[in-house]
């Protein structure tokens, strides 16, 4: 239990640092942007290169994503989510837009920046799932995905990492759309439950 509390404390502190950095970015402090970039660029780059499957595109996107952070830092609302979630959402949306059509937003539907930030949950900041990243979480996520069935893991990876729509997944896997939806729903819920259980242990 003490270990868990220590992790939670560390995660909350990490998000606090991120928030302070964003506040400095709002004030146009380049050093703050550089620090935030150093904290998140590898993760963001890893995600976008997985989605667009092109190093030059991923590099271009990485720069674009942090330019958006620089320009829109003042739109981040601390009480509505973590800096990590905000940045990852921007990154994934931009990468999928790039993948699907020359940066024109063509996502089917989903959690946009605004909708994500509109999830007004005052308990969010106290929930380690919503705070930040850590090496412990990296391992936990890998472990969590490993607990899913291969079918569940496949549809989630095709959707999240490759930006495919459920209809495209249905076509590619030659399974009914309903099955794609069910696998995805159950997989995500199971992953959430796994993470919660691990944290609460």
């Amino acid at each position, binding site marked *: 239990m003490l270990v868990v509390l220590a992790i939670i404390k560390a995660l909350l502190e990490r998000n606090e640092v991120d928030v302070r950095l964003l506040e400095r970015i709002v004030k146009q402090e380049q050093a703050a942007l550089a620090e935030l970039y150093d904290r998140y660029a590898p993760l963001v780059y890893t995600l976008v290169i*997985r989605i667009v499957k092109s190093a030059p595109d991923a590099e271009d996107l990485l720069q674009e994503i942090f330019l958006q952070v620089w320009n829109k830092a003042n739109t981040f609302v601390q009480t509505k989510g973590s800096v990590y*979630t905000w940045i990852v959402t921007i990154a994934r949306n931009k990468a999928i837009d790039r993948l699907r059509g020359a940066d024109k937003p063509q996502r089917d539907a989903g*959690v946009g920046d605004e909708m994500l930030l509109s999830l007004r*949950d005052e308990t969010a900041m106290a929930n380690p799932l919503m705070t930040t990243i850590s090496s412990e979480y*990296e391992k936990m*996520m890998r472990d*969590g995905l490993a607990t899913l069935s291969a079918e569940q893991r496949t549809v989630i990876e095709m959707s999240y990492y490759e930006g495919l*729509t*459920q209809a495209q997944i249905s076509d590619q896997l030659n399974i009914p759309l309903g099955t794609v939806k069910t696998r995805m729903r159950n997989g995500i*819920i199971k992953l959430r439950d796994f993470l919660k259980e691990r944290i609460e242990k």
Partner: protein
Amino acid sequence: MTRDEFLQLGAEYAAGCLQGKELEDFEAYLQTATAQERNDLAELVNTVSLLPLALERKTPPESVREELLKQTRLSPRARDSVEERTKEMAGKIPRPRPSGWRAWMPFGLTFAGLAMVIGFAVYVAGLLNTIESQNRRLVELQDQLQRKEELLGVLSAKQVDMVLMSGLPSNPTSYGKIIWDREKRIAILQVSNLPPVPSDKDYQLWVIKSADGGQPISAGVFAVGSTESFYFKIEQLAVTNPREIAAFAITLEPKGGVPAPTGAMYVAGSPKL
């Protein structure tokens, strides 16, 4: 919606897979979602957002960082910010002072405005003084009119007596007369060319009777302003028969009069019997 139903839809929503009417309905439902549901959804969204952590980490080239910092040195927001700050500062930085007549124009306008206000105040004060003066004059004229009407009333009596008074050496140009309605025992004193009385003095009319050793009896006090002629009504004359009167006299006495004359005599006259 049951919790399981909410979690199912929430999972798809978190993954960005809800579309069309399903998406609209779910977002509409979110507007009235319970705290528990919102917490569930937040956990699902953040679970999905943690998926990148499971990927094998890759390191971006250093050139991306350098280019990013190079661009942010003068990014659109930076330029906007500079423009915004310039606008903000424009309101704070003192503007260059105008030269020549422009420099004095604000003072001139202020002075002109002040002069207009003062001028108007003087004008209003003058008007008020004029009105007050006119009011005083009106009261004075009304008083005179009243006295003249009283004089006419006395003159219209069936029988009147008149006593002429002349100026004495202290003021030889003054003169006066008393017109007396014996029946009504009312008399009017008219005097001319008496000097205006000081503020602490009054003129006092005396009746000097033939009997009683010529003891003067006060018939009233009055003040004279700058007017040449003055009428004063003697309400009750102490005597009814002119034969009892040896003389009338006017002296200058302390304000309000005195029981016996003490000051200089200005005019005096005796009835012509």
